[in-house]
């Protein structure tokens, strides 16, 4: 499907700078790093989570465990989806009960993904706290959810699509605003 690129809002340097800043904020807020675990939401949240774990390791020399969460089974629109989503593995091989969990995702939009992620999380244990980090907050929330750490607030129209591309999967670090081609 052809799509129009409307703007390139972040490049590799900007992404790096926001991750650096958010890492500092995480360190400021979480005195007890030993209790912190990072859980990335598939797919790009995993890589953002891993990058933050690496930054914390470099700054504080503390190894933060990183888990992977697949929210497909917890979607609230499961029965209405036109196309089926492949379920992928949730890989969290450490206990999350009584931990400070940092949920990481690339784009925060309606808030439904985060709702699903939290439901999924509570089936795995009872965290002490849950914090949310997103690279992009594009607005249009449909649920009472707000992020604790934001890379960039990006006002968008509902029609637009925000694409976060990361070198780990897309060979480039950038954030684009695109619009699907007009259907004629």
């Amino acid at each position, binding site marked *: 499907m052809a799509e129009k690129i409307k703007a390139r809002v972040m490049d590799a340097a900007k992404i790096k700078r926001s991750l650096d800043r958010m890492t500092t904020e995480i360190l400021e807020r979480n005195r007890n790093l030993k209790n912190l675990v990072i859980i990335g939401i598939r797919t790009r949240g995993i890589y953002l989570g891993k990058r933050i774990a690496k930054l914390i390791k470099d700054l504080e020399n503390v190894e933060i465990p990183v888990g992977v969460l*697949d929210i497909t*089974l917890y979607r609230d629109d499961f*029965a209405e989806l*036109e196309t089926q989503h492949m379920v992928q593995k949730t890989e969290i091989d450490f206990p999350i009960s009584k931990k400070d969990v940092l949920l990481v995702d690339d784009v925060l939009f309606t808030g439904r993904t985060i709702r699903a992620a939290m439901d*999924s999380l509570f*089936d*795995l244990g009872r965290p002490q706290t849950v914090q949310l980090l997103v690279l992009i907050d594009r607005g249009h929330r449909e649920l009472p959810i707000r992020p604790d750490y934001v890379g960039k607030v990006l006002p968008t129209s509902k029609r637009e699509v925000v694409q976060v591309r990361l070198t780990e999967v897309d060979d480039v670090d950038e954030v684009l605003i695109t619009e699907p081609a007009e259907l004629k």
Partner: protein
Amino acid sequence: MEFKRRHLLGIQELEVSEIMTILDTAESLSEISTREVKKVPTLRGKTIINLFFEPSTRTRSSFELAAKRLSADIVNFSQQTSSVVKGESLKDTVLNLEAMNPDALVIRHSCSGAPHFVSTFCRSHVINAGDGSHEHPTQALLDALTIRQHKKNFPNLKVVIVGDILHSRVARSNIFLLQKVGASVTLVGPPSLLPPEFGQLGVQIAHNLDKALEGADVIMMLRIQRERQKANYFPSLREYRNLYCLTRERFRLAKKDAIIMHPGPINRGIEISSEMADSVKSVILKQVENGIAIRMAVLYLLLGGKERETAD
């Protein structure tokens, strides 16, 4: 890869890509059964009826647990306690159950083709849980998952299936599946239970187990179905055991890293010695474990997503 089928009636009509989608989905879902809370909300509000016209513990409870782990509601129906004993026909039974608005029917029946017949007139998704001596698709899928976990790749694998091939729906489904994915299949059994017609499926036919086991990667033992043996397909159980029982001596003829499979229930000391059934080479209980993941995957793929208009 999207799974577009409405029913799961057999392996024969599946494409390789569909088989792989089921196996991959099962692999992802298997983690749920290891959690403390073994349940996800995915199929909440869906109703599934287990319709078993033949006795079964493993398959029925496996489907039941699979449905429950996905939060679907499941009702068990068995022939002994139903109106079937009062003479109700299969079609009437199904129509009556359908009036209760289920989303899927899991059917086991002693007549080959019964699930296919039901799928021609019912609204629900139909899953074949074993029909006569035709197919048992979820068993072949869980066997394939087990093989893939131990052997990584299917092409060039030598799989030996031993025993009562004639009556075995498990064997048929496995033959179809293994051939599609490129494994080489050798069938072994007495001529009365392994008629030469099976050669037309493109598999090797052998009557001597010792010879057939040479170079085997996977040994799949089938149960001697004593309830179907009234017609005397072989002279005695003792003779069968002497010729076809998997013993430690015979197992040495296969590859060193060969695995032993059995769809259960096993007759210890008839088709497989107790020692081999319990040995480290046996993956029989892993098969049972994988059964739940496979059935979760099938329910997920059939019942998930929007109702599709067209029936296949």
